[in-house]
């Protein structure tokens, strides 16, 4: 990319720190406290490394680091631009939160194989950072695959039949799509473009025929299965068998966000928005994605399981982000990119609340939540905040991104999208508000009545979720660091 | 044309003749033991005669001695082989063919 | 099975016969096989290896390495037989 480049080892350090932490975790597997301390320390260190790069990025430079050449012309290389750092900041920050939460959650449920859990968690974060920092499609694919594989033990943590079949579906979808579509797409790209490096305006422009571009576009769209676009969304609800922190971080933040991040990367830096626009693929993309938005919300309405509902909500929300690539306008892109963060905070709050309910009340079904808000006020309040944020109600972070998206769709003259956004928001409220309502104002359900011990679980659980709920509120008022990064990125693309 | 050549022709033809009779015997004789008579004896002499014929044709030299050694070898080995087979036949209980009147 | 193997056999034979069509006649002294490498063996074996039997000189010297391989084959056959069959009696 045509920006000033600084060579720095920081991206590598950020990626490797979690991996080093694995070693420590395994070594100290007999002492749980030490083990968890290592996790927290690693998360803090990682975050600080990532955060330390923000300043450089504000000045409009990018950071690059080349690790090894795997193929003449293709390296495993890191390159931190605003978009990547944006995602990395989110992941590494939330890792801290979730680490605390995990401690509470795992201990209160007395889970088995915790060492393995923490170790793979760290690998997952590392590879998510790798995805964020990768400088070319190849590195991206590499970390993408590692992310897939290393989350498998997390998803199937319970090791029962349900986890097993879910694990199968999880891998089947993710590996299947990546091997069958993503990999050939990369290869075709390489074949036609001669390079895989991300470039601000895409590398495919003029390199391949129109039909080929469309074909490649479809391959990428379906190949990046982690984005859970509609025909390949089946894995996400099934992956909810995982322990809640896993669902929280990975399926609200790291994995699915990595998916949409990859999608956006590809559309922005491989195809280039102009190319998409010229080929009319952007129109196709937004309408295709709209289907997912609406259907996802619709399915979410039907769910009785909290986590399943959240999962469908995620499916729907992810497609908002992809809209960014389709809405050929400044605000549209900005909205999509910012939505990564806004949705991240909101959704992680919701998941942690679900976990908290599970720990405190052992309830998974929405229909049994009657009156629980009176017993667990903090949790349910946080849930309320999170729900509002995700639905895009001011004064919560989610509003911001939706607002930008709406602006973008107006700018791009795509009125139907506005309708879609509005409908979806209504549906969001439609599935979130009943939960909040019955938990605070509904009659006590059978299970709540029966169990007098229902109360807020340990502070390790409650504190993080309260924190993120507050963050999602605060971010509406102080979105500066994120918006700034997103603006840098979008401007560099639009302006260039 | 010296004397040895007709002599060697004679021997060769003799060898061939005995080979022929041995083969005919092999084909015509009624049972295994009788056939052994044909091959065991006929072939020995035929080989000897042929060897003599060839060595006569080649003239006397070390080669003749070598051929003579083959002859000596055949002279010992052929009856032994015949004996070995016939003995195996006997021990395996092959009944020698007898004339009809003797069978009773 | 028999039919299948018969078909394979006939196919192979057909290929072989097809190849035979372009072969030089049998016992032709002017085939390329006798023109390229072998004349040197015949003409120079005596002066180079002092051996009358050209086959031996080629076997032992010009292509001596093949013969080492051949001996190794035999050796490995012997070892193979021992490995496969040999068993010591239980005491």
């Amino acid at each position, binding site marked *: 990319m045509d920006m000033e480049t600084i060579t720095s080892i920081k991206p590598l350090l950020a990626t490797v720190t979690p991996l080093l932490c694995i070693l420590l975790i395994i070594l100290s597997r007999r002492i749980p406290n030490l083990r968890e301390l290592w996790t927290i320390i690693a998360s803090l260190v990682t975050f600080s490394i990532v955060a330390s790069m923000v300043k450089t990025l504000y000045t409009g430079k990018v950071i690059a680091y080349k690790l090894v050449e795997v193929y003449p012309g293709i390296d495993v290389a890191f390159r931190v631009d605003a978009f990547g750092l944006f995602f990395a900041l989110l992941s590494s920050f939330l890792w801290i939160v979730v680490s605390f939460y995990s401690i509470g959650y795992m201990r209160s449920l007395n889970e088995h194989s915790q060492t393995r859990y923490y170790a793979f968690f760290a690998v997952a974060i590392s590879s998510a950072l790798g995805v964020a920092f990768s400088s070319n499609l190849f590195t991206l694919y590499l970390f993408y695959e590692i992310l897939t594989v290393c989350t498998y033990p997390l998803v199937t943590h319970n090791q029962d039949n349900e986890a097993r079949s879910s694990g199968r579906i999880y891998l089947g979808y993710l590996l299947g799509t990546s091997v069958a579509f993503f990999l050939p797409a990369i290869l075709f790209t390489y074949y036609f473009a001669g390079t895989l490096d991300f470039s601000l305006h895409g590398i495919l422009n003029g390199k391949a025929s129109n039909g080929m571009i469309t074909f490649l576009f479809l391959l990428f769209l379906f190949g990046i299965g982690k984005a859970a676009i509609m025909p390949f969304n089946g894995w996400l609800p099934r992956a909810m068998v995982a322990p809640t922190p896993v669902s929280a971080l990975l399926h609200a933040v790291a994995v699915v966000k990595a998916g949409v991040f990859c999608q956006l990367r590809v559309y922005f830096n491989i195809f280039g928005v102009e190319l998409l626009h010229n080929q009319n693929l952007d129109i196709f993309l937004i309408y295709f994605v709209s289907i997912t938005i609406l259907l996802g919300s619709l399915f979410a309405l039907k769910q009785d399981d909290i986590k399943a509902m959240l999962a469908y909500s995620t499916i729907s929300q992810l497609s908002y982000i992809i809209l960014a690539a389709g809405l050929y306008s400044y605000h549209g892109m900005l909205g999509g990119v910012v939505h990564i963060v806004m949705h991240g905070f909101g959704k992680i709050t919701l998941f942690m609340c679900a976990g908290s309910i599970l720990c405190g009340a052992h309830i998974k079904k929405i229909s049994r939540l009657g009156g629980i808000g009176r017993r667990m006020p903090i949790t349910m309040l946080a849930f309320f905040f999170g729900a509002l944020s995700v639905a895009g109600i001011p004064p919560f972070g989610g509003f911001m991104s939706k607002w930008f998206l709406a602006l973008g769709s107006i700018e791009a003259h795509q009125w139907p999208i506005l309708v879609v956004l509005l409908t979806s928001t209504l549906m969001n409220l439609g599935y979130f508000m009943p939960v909040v309502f019955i938990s605070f104002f509904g009659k006590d359900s059978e299970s709540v009545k029966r169990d007098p011990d229902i109360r807020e679980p340990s502070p390790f659980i409650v504190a993080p979720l309260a924190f993120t709920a507050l963050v999602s509120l605060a971010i509406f008022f102080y979105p500066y660091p994120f918006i700034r990064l997103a603006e840098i990125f979008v401007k560099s693309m639009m302006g260039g | 044309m010296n004397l040895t*050549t007709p002599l060697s*022709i004679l021997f*060769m*033809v003799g*060898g*061939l003749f005995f*080979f*022929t009779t*041995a*083969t*005919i015997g*092999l*084909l015509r004789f009624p049972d*295994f033991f009788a*056939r*052994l008579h044909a*091959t065991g004896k006929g*072939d020995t002499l*035929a*080989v000897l005669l*042929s*060897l003599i014929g*060839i060595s006569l*044709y*080649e003239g006397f030299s070390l*080669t003749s001695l*070598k*051929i003579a*050694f*083959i002859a000596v*070898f*055949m002279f010992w*080995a*052929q009856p*032994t*082989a015949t004996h*070995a*087979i016939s*003995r*195996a*036949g006997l*021990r*395996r*209980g*092959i009944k020698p063919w007898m004339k009809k009147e003797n069978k009773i | 099975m028999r039919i299948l193997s018969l078909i394979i056999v006939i196919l192979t034979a057909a290929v072989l016969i097809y190849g035979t069509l372009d072969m030089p006649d049998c016992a032709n002294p002017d085939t390329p096989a006798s023109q390229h490498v072998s004349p040197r063996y015949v003409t120079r074996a005596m002066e180079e290896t002092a051996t009358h039997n050209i086959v031996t000189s080629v076997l032992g010297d010009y292509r001596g390495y093949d013969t080492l391989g051949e001996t190794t084959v035999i050796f490995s056959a012997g070892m193979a037989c021992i490995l496969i069959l040999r068993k010591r009696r239980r005491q």
Partner: protein
Amino acid sequence: MDGFFLSIGVGLCILVFLALYRVVFGPGIFNRVAAVSAIGNKTLIMLLIMGVIYKRIEMFIDISLVYALLNFICTLAISKYLEMEGDK
């Protein structure tokens, strides 16, 4: 003179052919063994005749000696086997 040896050789060939009848159809193993050793004797002479025709007989003597030798050993082996067969 070559012609003469050739014709002797052809005669032997015919005899071999006749003996092959016993080899192929000969009832039972014993007839076959006898016939094979008979063929061996004939080919022994044929080898020498070839030596004569090639005018290099000293090269062929070794072969025919080996030939006779191994024919003998083979026959012994077979007869030993036949003898032992029932004892198993």
